[in-house]
């Protein structure tokens, strides 16, 4: 069963093109890695997949719904970790999560579970701006799974994660469909079954199954 089906996705910014005719599909439970250099269009693509942005043209369906129209409904089942953490510096880690709980309509009890999951249980009371970059990233990941989404979209989550980050990502991605953008081929290898390579907004080659290299 396909979770994501996208055809001819194109994204324009004024006269500049971020994505040019990208097709992709992702099946349920699959983990897809999107690789490519900076500026290749990974972030643009991921934002569209997360319904944070709408493509200039092209079709995209997520869970069978038209993703450019049914955004509000889809957002309830999608978790997005963007490039920037999206946290409130003056609030503590726990308070940040509580705030998002209210927005998500999720019970506050989840906060404790999620803090455990991302390994921030001891730092729950620390203001977010006093957390290390790695801890902030963990918190952002926690925020994205607060509502137990079925689809997880992660934009270079490994960029600032500290050690043990790969394990965390594996834990978080387990049992969900996931699309992750990264530079790290080894990580992609470990976490995902398929890759997609972008260069200058276009898909290069064919989405391949990763071979496990021993």
């Amino acid at each position, binding site marked *: 069963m396909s979770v994501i089906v996208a055809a001819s996705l194109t*994204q*324009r*910014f*004024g*006269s*500049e*093109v*971020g994505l*040019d005719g990208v097709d992709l599909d992702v099946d349920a439970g699959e983990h897809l890695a999107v690789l490519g250099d*900076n*500026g*290749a*269009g990974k*972030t*643009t693509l991921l*934002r569209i997949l997360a319904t*944070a*942005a*709408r493509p*200039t043209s092209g079709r995209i369906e997520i869970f069978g719904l038209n993703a450019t129209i049914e955004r509000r409904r889809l957002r309830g089942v999608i978790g997005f970790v*963007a*490039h*920037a953490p*999206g946290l409130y510096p003056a609030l503590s880690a726990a308070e940040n999560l509580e705030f998002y709980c209210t927005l998500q309509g999720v019970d506050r009890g989840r906060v404790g579970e999620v803090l455990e999951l991302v390994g921030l249980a001891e730092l729950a009371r620390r203001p977010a701006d006093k957390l290390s970059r790695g801890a902030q990233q963990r918190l952002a990941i926690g925020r994205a799974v607060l509502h137990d989404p079925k689809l997880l979209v992660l934009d270079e989550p490994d960029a600032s994660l500290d050690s043990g980050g790969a394990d965390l990502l594996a834990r978080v991605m387990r049992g969900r469909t996931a699309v992750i953008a990264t530079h790290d081929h080894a990580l992609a290898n470990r976490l995902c079954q398929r890759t997609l390579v972008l260069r*200058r*907004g276009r898909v290069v080659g064919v989405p391949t199954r990763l071979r496990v290299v021993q």
Partner: protein
Amino acid sequence: MTKYEKGALAAVAAMVVAAGFIFLYAPTDALQGPVQRIFYLHVSSAIAAYGCFAVVLIGGIAYLWKENVAADRLARAAALVGLVFTTITLVMGMIWAKPTWGTYWTWDARLTSTLVLWIIYAGYLMVRRLADPGRQAARFAAVVGIFGFIDVPVVHFSVTWWRTQHPGPVVINDALPPQMLVAFFVTMACTLFLAAVMIAIRYRIELLMDQAAEKVVPAAIAAPTEAGGVR
């Protein structure tokens, strides 16, 4: 000659006709003297401006509702033309004011609200320029255009709602002699025609600019600049 050139020529001809009515047909005002003739163009420009801003309002609503790019383009064109006519109104007003009141400007309700109108639509054009081109610029501008239109009835009714120095409504109150009335309606019709032609021409320009922008496709791939994107 393209239809735009023909339209432009027709509009110019219309204005010449109107000028004829203003200077040759209409009598000189007993009280104010020749300077009163500014009234015809001044009021016509104001009405043309209102009309333009009404187009901006409708275009904006149409865009927000249906994401109709043509509607947004029309709104853009009308906003610029409307701003031009507002400028004409203000300038003609100031030219009239100096000999009549002894000063170019006064802060009465009509003048102030008209100036505010000018600022609002100048803001509209600035938002278009500064926001991300495409959807964001169009949405934001539509919102500004809709809120800004609230000032139009204020401008129009300011002379009845408040005590102002600005002369009160004369056309509606039937305070004009028939010849002046005729001259006024002719001028107004010609000015509205001119405004329509200007909007049509500007629309075409905007259309060409949009099409040119879309052609610059393959070479540059940009990183998105919206909040949350790669910087």
